[in-house]
């Protein structure tokens, strides 16, 4: 399996590529297990963003790893823990058992009532943005915090290797033309995923990542000066904060309208209509935050010059 290869390899560049492959395989597995939304996210995040992140971090820390010292003790600890966990699974329900505890508590209500109450066929989006709206708000804030933490740790510098309009890959005609052709479609697809999250697989999280990937791709091929002129860091941090603000603002608005926090039926006279509007706004907030956080992180890593 790829996982074993990841452990064995000592060259970290190879590892970065292998984790990309691993993520794609995982996404395929999720697809097979009916989790279309999750597969979507894993493919965009794991195979796209993480690989780019790993590579730009490796540029800064160097890519060779020293051999390990005492694998025997570690192997023993791992073996014992694994055995204990396997013993623990003996009581667990079988794979795909419809009577497993996980499927009998709140899930039936989400499946049966979700499309009726929230008025959208994609139950994952309904649960994500409406029923568990508080959790998602928390997670959006976590993402914003992570982006800010990276910004605090690394700062945004423009390294000495940055030249306007030119980068190492930028001189290849095929790459330039292909990226120019692909970019509008990537962005369009991102918007579609954002807007269509109610009905099919997708939503703010995936859309944010996809759009950000489009920008990262452009940046990689065309050099770093252009993108930073169009989207300066100051703006990105503002966009990220505005995303959270939209989300929180919807909650506060429903409070003022005399409903519980993040109760979207306050937004319109008809509850289902209100839910639609609320989910749309909230997903837009999530999308903005995720998009700008991913780009902030990418800027921070790619702009940092290597210090000896």
């Amino acid at each position, binding site marked *: 399996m790829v*996982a074993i290869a*990841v*452990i064995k390899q000592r060259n*970290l560049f190879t590892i970065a590529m292998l*984790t990309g492959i691993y993520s794609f395989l*995982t996404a395929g597995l*999720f697809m097979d*297990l*009916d*989790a*279309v939304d*999750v597969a979507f*996210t894993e493919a965009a*995040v794991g195979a796209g963003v*993480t690989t780019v*992140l*790993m590579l730009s*971090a490796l540029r*800064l*820390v*160097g890519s060779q*790893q*020293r051999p*390990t010292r005492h694998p025997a003790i*570690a192997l023993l600890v*791992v073996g014992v*823990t694994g055995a204990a*966990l*396997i013993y623990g*699974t003996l009581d667990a329900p*079988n*794979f*795909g058992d*419809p009577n*497993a505890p*996980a*499927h009998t508590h709140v*899930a039936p209500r*989400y*499946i049966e009532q*979700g499309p009726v109450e929230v008025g959208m*066929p*994609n*139950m994952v989006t309904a*649960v*994500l943005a409406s029923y568990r709206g508080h959790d998602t708000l928390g*997670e959006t804030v*976590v*993402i914003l915090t*992570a*982006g800010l*933490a*990276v910004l605090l*740790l*690394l700062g945004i510098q423009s390294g000495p290797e940055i030249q306007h309009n030119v980068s190492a890959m930028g001189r290849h005609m095929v790459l330039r033309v292909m990226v120019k052709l692909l970019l509008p479609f990537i962005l369009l697809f991102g918007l579609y995923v954002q807007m269509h999250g109610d*009905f099919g697989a997708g939503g703010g*999280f995936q859309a944010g990542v996809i759009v950000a990937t489009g920008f990262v791709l452009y940046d990689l091929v065309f050099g770093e000066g252009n993108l930073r002129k169009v989207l300066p860091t100051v703006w990105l941090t503002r966009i990220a904060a505005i995303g959270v603000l939209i989300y929180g603002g919807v909650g506060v608005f429903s409070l003022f309208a005399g409903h519980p926090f993040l109760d979207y039926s306050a937004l319109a006279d008809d509850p289902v209509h209100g839910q639609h509007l609320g989910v749309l706004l909230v997903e837009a907030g999530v999308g903005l935050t995720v998009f700008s956080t991913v780009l902030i*992180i990418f800027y921070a*890593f790619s702009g940092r010059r290597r210090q*000896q």
Partner: protein
Amino acid sequence: MIEIGHYNYWVAIFLMMAGFYVVIAQGNLVKKLVGLSLFQTSVFILYISMGKVADGAPPIQTPGVEIYSNPLPHVLILTAIVVGVATTAVGLALVVRIRESYGTVEEEEIHAMAQPADEKGEG
């Protein structure tokens, strides 16, 4: 559908232990982060495989489909993936800073460097 019993848990446990091994046995900090994300994916797979219902369809309402897989784990994992990449980025940023102040990302070398500094500070 093929009956696979508890096999899904064992796959998750195998991956989790592989990640765990990398975290405790390897000295390179970047490698440790890779191990952590391996560990993380194993948890994702565990949740998603628990959400699967035999003969179920993806949880998007379709006319004529009665059995859906459980949407709740999907929601949890979807957000966890994005949060996961954000935290990995923070980890990598820390590693970059460590590399800048110590000149290495190998745990033992860092320890060796930090030890004399501590003794000096106490004395």
